[in-house]
């Protein structure tokens, strides 16, 4: 019995196979419409995340399965003080697979250690969110056709942005990857990501504060939100925030086949005017998340 808590648990072969399944689902949705008939997905969301929950639920429905669960801790057994391990054991009696979101880091791992059915981490605090990374990878594959020899710009909050850290660790396993890390000084990538992931894998990277200057070299631009509360004072935030907002002017010198990504929800870090640009991939990225969740559910349930 297999779970997915951290994207690093997937081998390159398993990632390839998940992507192949997702691409086949996109081409032949009918073939998959009853694969999970009679199976139940439990969505245990101890904190609300409508976007991720709906994506998991849509994935299960499109496989012909059913869904049960809760969408916030106050309506669950956790509100009565039940432990994560007891919840996992109890749900194992009713469902075939669990998708768990929890504000505490490591909670889905505790569930996986106690459940008798597969557990998918649907986000544990600021720690892991492997299905977001799967969505990111499918988007890159569909747009670029490859994972190697790409220059990937990561822009915004690189200090706290877990999606960025996990994308870096996923892409660092491929050859010829170069990262351009674009952020204000205050929100630079943590040093442990540099030593433990980038340097360890011999990955080339540059750090810069200049989004416009970095633009021409990029094959992929992954935007994240620069949150006001990450700054010590309002002045710094106001001074910097516009530098990290993507608009049509900043894209003038970008490659014609640039792929612009964002984990969503967006606030204002990508101006709405960019949405019409054919290089904007972020809504497709959300859709890709559903296909990868479908492929993952099939893999974890052992359904071919």
């Amino acid at each position: 019995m297999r779970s997915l808590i951290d994207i690093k648990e997937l081998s390159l072969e398993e990632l390839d196979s998940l992507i192949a399944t997702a691409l086949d689902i996109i081409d032949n949705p009918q073939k998959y419409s009853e694969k999970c008939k009679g199976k139940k997905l439990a969505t245990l969301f101890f904190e609300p995340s409508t976007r991720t929950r709906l994506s998991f639920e849509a994935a299960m429905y499109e496989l012909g399965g059913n869904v049960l669960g809760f969408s916030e801790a106050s309506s669950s057994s956790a509100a009565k003080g039940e432990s994560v391990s007891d919840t996992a054991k109890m749900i194992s009696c009713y469902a075939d697979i669990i998708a768990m979101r929890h504000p505490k880091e490591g909670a889905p791992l505790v569930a996986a250690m106690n459940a008798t059915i597969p557990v998918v981490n649907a986000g544990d605090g600021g720690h892991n969110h492997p299905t977001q990374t799967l969505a990111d990878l499918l988007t890159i594959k569909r747009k670029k056709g490859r994972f190697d020899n790409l220059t990937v710009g990561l822009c915004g909050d690189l200090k706290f942005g877990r999606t960025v850290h996990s994308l870096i660790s996923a892409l660092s396993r491929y050859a010829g990857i170069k990262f351009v890390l674009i952020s204000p000084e205050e929100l630079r990538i943590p040093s442990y990501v540099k030593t433990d992931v980038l340097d360890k894998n011999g990955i080339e990277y540059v750090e810069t504060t200049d989004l416009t200057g970095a633009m021409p070299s990029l094959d992929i631009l992954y935007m994240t939100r620069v949150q006001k509360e990450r700054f010590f004072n309002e002045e710094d935030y106001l001074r910097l925030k516009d530098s990290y907002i993507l608009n049509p002017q900043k894209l003038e010198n970008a490659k014609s086949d640039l792929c612009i990504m964002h984990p969503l929800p967006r606030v204002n870090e990508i101006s709405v005017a960019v949405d019409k640009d054919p290089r904007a991939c972020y809504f497709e990225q959300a859709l890709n998340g559903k296909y990868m969740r479908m492929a993952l559910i099939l893999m974890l349930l052992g359904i071919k």
Partner: protein
Amino acid sequence: MNIDSIKNGIVIDHITAGKGMELYALLNLDSLSCPIVIGKNLPSGKMGTKDIIKIDADISLNTDILGYIDPDVTINIIKNGQIAEKKTVSLPERLVNVISCKNPRCITSCEQELDQVFTLTDKENRVYRCLYCETKAKEENH
């Protein structure tokens, strides 16, 4: 008291100076009723100074704790007043309920019945991380 004065017991030798008391506490030696001697800052040929702990009873030591706190210690097992065995320890792969995670966002912070588990993630730099949240064990635990 020197090694000769122990009939059957254990001498933890070559403890890095200053770590003797920490080991005493973590090994829970306070709970023993047998004679125990702790030597601090003793002159040592190869180390300059060292700490030493002598336990006058044949108990089983948690070598994971020794390996984590001070992997260069030597354990001498004393039988009938003689060193019957000399043992070294190694860095443990896994520490269970030895140190606890300090990350307030970690699941162990709100579910206290969970085992505190740390795994060795970087042998060269002796880095241990919480199994649940991957937070690095802090230096003050060493």
